[in-house]
């Protein structure tokens, strides 16, 4: 009897029938990519950058709905555009936090206004603002893993160069690297992940999924690679923990994931204190 139940559960997992299994897989897929990417965001002090890109994706949702395109194309296009805009603007030496603050919130507001024009009140804004991880479909899953894999490969293929450029642009340039190109490749990866993470935690909390696991990993790591890996692990744990919290307590899934991540961050502070470094 138990054997049969186990087999059914197993089959369910294989077939990804269970919405919870799909939700976990989707969240973990994003968390894996968010680990190294979020670490880079933290090292480069670009927390606001994640916000700007994420908030802009709401504008992408509006545009996609207006032109009857799949939502992900809209978010991807606008996230990329925003990422490139921010990279060029900050490269010109504008005050970074102000530029990002203006862009991030303008894009969010513009997106919210645009959505109200497009579909009246019929669009479920909550799904885009706070995520809709429990409604992830099989094709969503494919997209999330595909895009995350591309982002991770992009970052890993340039890892050494990215680290050097992050540490000191002159040092990178003296070694024959182009710091601007490294910045752009990171920006591209960020836009990719943000576009698919919209479904998981929503535009308002994407930056949290990038930064909190990386910040938690910081206290317990000795090398950049360790930090990236731990960030992925902590992100994955947050997804799983958050989903179970959401299921048991009937809380919204996206925010629950971030709450668990924040809890793990506090734990990391305590654990990190015991270790040198």
């Amino acid at each position, binding site marked *: 009897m138990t054997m049969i139940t186990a087999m059914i559960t197993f089959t369910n997992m294989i077939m990804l029938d269970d919405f919870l299994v799909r939700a976990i897989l989707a969240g973990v897929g994003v968390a894996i990519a968010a680990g190294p990417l979020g670490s880079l965001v933290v090292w480069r002090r670009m927390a606001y950058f994640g916000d700007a890109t994420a908030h802009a994706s709401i504008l992408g949702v509006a545009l996609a709905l207006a032109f009857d395109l799949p939502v992900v194309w809209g978010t991807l296009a606008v996230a990329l555009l925003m990422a490139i805009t921010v990279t060029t603007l900050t490269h010109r030496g504008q005050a970074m936090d102000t530029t990002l603050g203006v862009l991030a919130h303008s894009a969010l507001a513009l997106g919210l206004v645009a959505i109200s024009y497009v579909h009246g009140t019929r669009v479920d804004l909550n799904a885009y603002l706070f995520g809709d991880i429990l409604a992830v479909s099989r094709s969503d899953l494919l997209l999330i893993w595909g895009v995350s894999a591309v982002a991770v490969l992009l970052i890993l293929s340039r890892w050494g160069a990215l680290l*050097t450029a*992050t*540490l000191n642009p*002159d*040092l990178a340039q*003296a070694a024959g690297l182009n710091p601007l190109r490294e910045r752009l490749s990171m920006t591209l990866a960020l836009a990719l992940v943000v576009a698919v993470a919209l479904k998981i935690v929503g535009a308002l909390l994407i930056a949290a999924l990038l930064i909190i696991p990386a910040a938690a990993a*910081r206290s317990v790591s000795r090398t950049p690679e360790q930090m990236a890996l731990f960030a992925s692990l902590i992100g994955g744990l947050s997804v799983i923990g958050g989903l179970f919290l959401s299921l048991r307590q009937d809380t919204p899934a996206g925010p629950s994931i971030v709450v668990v991540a924040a809890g793990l961050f506090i734990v990391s502070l305590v654990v990190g204190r015991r270790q040198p*470094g």
Partner: protein
Amino acid sequence: MNILTAEHVSVNLDGQTILSDISLAVHSGEIVTIVGPNGSGKTTLLRTLLGLMSPSSGKVTRKDGLRVGYVPQRLAIDRSMPLTVERFMSLPTRQTPTRIKDMLIRVEADGLQKRQLRDLSGGQFQRVLLARALLVDPELLVLDEPTQGLDQLGEAAFYTLLEHVRADAHCSVLMVSHDLHVVMSTTDRVICLNGHICCQGTPSVVSKAPEYRALFGLGTHGALALYRHDHDHDHSHDHLHEHDHA
């Protein structure tokens, strides 16, 4: 043989002329020190010579495939990135532990491999930067104010070390210093910079030049000679001379 040449190089930034009509050459095996007050364009000149920025006019020529070891002015290590010395040495190109150890031995910093970069003292940090620059087996070592932030003792020790390292590596050295009290004793040529080249020559010639005096005031007369020893005397115990007129 010249490994690095600048011909009539000028650099303008945001409508301001930072450098005008700079011509200089670094010969193989030579030690050249650029001195000048703050804002005289020393770092800009170094960056232009290295190809990190392009001149507005004029021409910089580097020997084909010149291997340059670069020690940047300041490297603010963000506390947010955990980074051990050995991992840092492997950026951007992976190095074997043996090679890292070899280089650290050459700068008398072996044993620091597992330490976090941000926990190092100023002197240790400069040594690690130097060791990293040596990894490329440089023909030219470029240092931008390498002793900034070190105390006098640390400064003297660093220059002594640099002389040993250079003797081993047989490379040219191009160095920037704002501190006129300390110039490598084996410096072949001092270039005095203030937007343009005021004067250049051996340390003793430059310290007596009227252009140099005009720029730095008479008070620093003789200061350049502080670390310029006669080559035939004993180097083992004399790295901290008294300032002769302080």
